């Protein structure tokens, strides 16, 4: 089965006054139709830049590689083509719904406008669809709230409105960039349940970007762990979560406070993520890795199959066998 989105050897760099920032350095991944890929990584790992580049939102960046979406190459596509895809076929939602909604226009109007920009429908029909969408995402009193301004919505409701807008044109792919980070856990749980039910109803594929391993445990089919612009590990979520191989992935799990560990000190990953202006030679994680040995400093490890599982791959020079997480 060919993937809905197939990204190969993506490289993105930004020329800055301090030098060229290599934000994404040779990243490949696939998203299958109707499935959820979770991209996890820390600040500056390149996870947001990756998705923004795919939809043509990184201006001034130097890009190479290819991104096939549903039979079309996105990186070489013209701005017009991208504009027609963005919103209609690939929808995006972001962390902060207050700054993604225009403060001076009514919520309903903004969704109507998105529909009218891509389809030839009357305002009235578009409004009817908007109302239905707002109901679908669980806005109470939708017929009244449709004419509210964004500031009259709570944080959770704004994110629901953003999801309604994203779904308005029935996209094939929804890119959600930290959609629940600014929300309370209770609201976060509501939004995750909503995204899962929407995926079931509409068959939308989702790319979920987050730094929260817990959020992905609840919804991702596949997981991609990024560090310093590269894939450290990827595979089916249960495989990566139960038997993580890469020391960075295990480090992320170990740094979490979890139950049954009492008040013992946590195990942080020492040091800081590297600068991407002059990234370390070899494996980018080697300066912080506790298993570092000679090859790590010299050569960049390829993504190899772990435990013979072709889907579960890890970019590490250690033997490709994993152990279950404690």
């Amino acid at each position, binding site marked *: 089965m060919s993937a809905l989105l197939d990204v190969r050897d993506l490289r993105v760099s930004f020329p800055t006054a301090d030098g060229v920032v290599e934000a994404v350095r040779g990243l490949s991944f696939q998203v299958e139709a109707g499935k959820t890929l979770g991209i996890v990584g820390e600040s500056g790992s390149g996870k947001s830049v990756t998705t923004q580049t795919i939809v043509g939102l990184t201006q001034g960046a130097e890009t190479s590689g290819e991104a096939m979406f549903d039979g079309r190459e996105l990186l070489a596509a013209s701005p017009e083509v991208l504009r027609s895809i963005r919103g209609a076929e690939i929808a995006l939602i972001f962390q902060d719904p207050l700054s993604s909604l225009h403060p001076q226009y009514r919520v309903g109007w903004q969704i109507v406008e998105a529909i009218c920009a891509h389809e030839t429908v009357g305002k009235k029909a578009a409004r009817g669809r908007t109302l239905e969408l707002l109901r679908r995402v669980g806005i109470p009193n939708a017929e009244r709230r449709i004419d509210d301004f964004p500031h009259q919505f709570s944080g*959770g409701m704004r994110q629901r409105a953003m999801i309604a807008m994203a779904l308005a044109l029935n996209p094939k792919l929804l890119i959600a960039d930290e959609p629940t980070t600014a929300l*309370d*856990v209770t609201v976060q749980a509501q939004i995750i349940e909503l995204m899962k039910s929407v995926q079931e109803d509409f068959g939308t594929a989702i790319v979920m970007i987050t730094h929260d*391993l817990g959020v992905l445990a609840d919804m991702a089919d596949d997981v991609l762990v990024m560090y310093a612009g590269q894939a450290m590990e990827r595979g089916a979520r249960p495989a990566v979560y139960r038997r993580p191989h890469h020391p960075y992935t295990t480090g*992320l799990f170990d740094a979490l*406070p979890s139950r049954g560990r009492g*008040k013992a*000190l946590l195990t942080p990953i020492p040091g800081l993520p590297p600068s991407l202006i002059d990234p370390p030679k070899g494996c980018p994680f080697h300066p912080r890795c506790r298993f570092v040995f000679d090859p790590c400093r010299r050569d960049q490890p390829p993504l190899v199959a772990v435990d013979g599982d072709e889907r579960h791959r890890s970019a590490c020079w250690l033997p490709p066998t994993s152990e279950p997480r404690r």
Partner: protein
Amino acid sequence: MNTASNGEALVHLRDVVKHFPVGSGLFRRGGGEVVHAVDGVSIDVRRGETLGIVGETGCGKSTLARCMTRLYDLTSGSVTFDGRDISLLSPRDLRPFRLEMQMIFQDPYNSLNPRRRVGSIIGDPFAIHHSVDGAERKRRVQELMELVGLNPEHYNRFPAEFSGGQRQRIGVARALALRPKLIVCDEPVSALDVSIQAQIINLLAELQQQLGLTYVFIAHDLSVVRHVSDRIAVMYLGKVVEVARAEELFARPRHPYTNALLSAIPEVDRDDEVARPQRILLGGDVPSPIGPPSGCRFHPRCPKARERCSVEEPALEPKDGAAAVAACHYPVEPGELARPA
């Protein structure tokens, strides 16, 4: 953070109320309405313990912290710190107490003045309280930097030259400068990445051991609060609805709100073969604190609410002989727990 807490209260809050007038200022547009940010909270912070405070946005946890440290004047109620009632002290009379209670804030980017050097930021408390100056101050600041894991040679750098985690260390050093007894940490790690977050949590734990500090730890990440706290207070709409030892609160919540909050935690260690217990999804949003619901404030969203709940406000009291206290007429039964214990 398990230093011996001998049960004696360092801070003692009684019926603390903090209301904010709506639309105060020139035009008074609120028509006399008030936000009931904190509405009658009584709780002790014991010497040497870490008291966690959790709750959704707008439940009043930060306001409570600011009342506790008297950054806000109370509307009514009292705060006793180290045996002395400080609720009505003037700013001048408060000064000696300010030495003993400090705060660490969430955002290490906005809580440090970008134009001042790190050395002078950390040295500020000494300057403000005229305790030491000159070479002695520099020596003390460098000592503090070393204590929190910063390179003392970076004394003359600006905050922009540090990463988020290092900046939070600067905030910790500043809070420690005057050897306080109490540190109120308001979301100290929420802005940090997981790997860095663990560094700061460990640092706070080690400092508590070394210096015998008492912490009030506010965070919305429940697994972090569970890890650091000896006891946890759960707040909802300006009220404390449950207080229990950390492990007990997670294993056996009594208040339906606590139960719902715990069930919302995304679980990394979830087992795919075992079906996850049905999440208790709370309907709607937190009601407005301007006109909070009658009776139990949680009743409009509570799965267990009955008529009594909308009329009679439940008292915060022990449930079935446990040490935990909860404010609920119909506490959670063992069969209704949202998470496996």
